[in-house]
């Protein structure tokens, strides 16, 4: 988790020009860091590449739009990192 978070935080800092120290596990990418959906796409692609996974961003967005999930479930960074770890584990299984 911590290593995943460090990688994700570095990607966000570099992609969105946000100071690394402002990026915390409790940060909400949209509400706290002000990242919009198209900017988040660059982050998602960089995460895909860094971890060798495919974030199902389209499915997450649909679930949020349909009220089946909250944005916090996917875009609070500690939750995002948990999902990345799960995708990594599923890929390695």
């Amino acid at each position, binding site marked *: 988790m911590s290593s995943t978070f460090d990688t994700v935080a570095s990607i966000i800092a570099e992609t969105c020009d946000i100071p690394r120290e402002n990026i915390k596990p409790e940060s909400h990418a949209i509400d706290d860091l002000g990242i919009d959906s198209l900017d988040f*796409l660059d982050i998602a*692609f960089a995460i895909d590449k860094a971890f060798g996974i495919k974030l199902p961003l*389209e499915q997450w*967005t649909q679930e949020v739009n349909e009220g089946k999930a909250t944005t916090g479930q996917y875009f609070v960074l500690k939750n995002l990192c948990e999902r990345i770890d799960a995708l990594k584990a599923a890929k390695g299984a």
Partner: protein
Amino acid sequence: MYIEYFLLVDRIVALSIEEGVVRCEATVPTESTIYQGHFPGFPVLPGVLLIEAMAQNAGWLILAMTRCERFPFLSIINEAKLRNFVRPGNVLLVESKLIHEGSGYIKTENRVLFENAVMCEATTTFRVLPFPSPVFQEKLIAHALKIGFPAEFAPHGR
């Protein structure tokens, strides 16, 4: 190029899903009302049309990847560089290469060549969605097949 109809590539010369590459030919029209303003006495194809030509070129690859079931809507243009003037009558080669696919989006690197010189380049990202209209899908597939889109990537029975 049929600028009035916003059809900016003329013929698909190569398309490979395995390699993630598409190349199209596009001849810049010798006559167009656009040149009256861009520019008087010095006709040049506007850079925005070159960027659209690259997007349309990449679009044929993405349509093939989705078997014409989804349409790529241009969402992001990065790193666009307009390096040389493109003039009436130039026969251009437009090239696009897939660099990432995921999260409902596809990203491509593109460039336009004239006599082996790079005239412009850009990275484009598309949101790939189901066709919003069956008429749109039908007309696009009909046009695709006319310009050399491989029939194997069109829905059966077309």
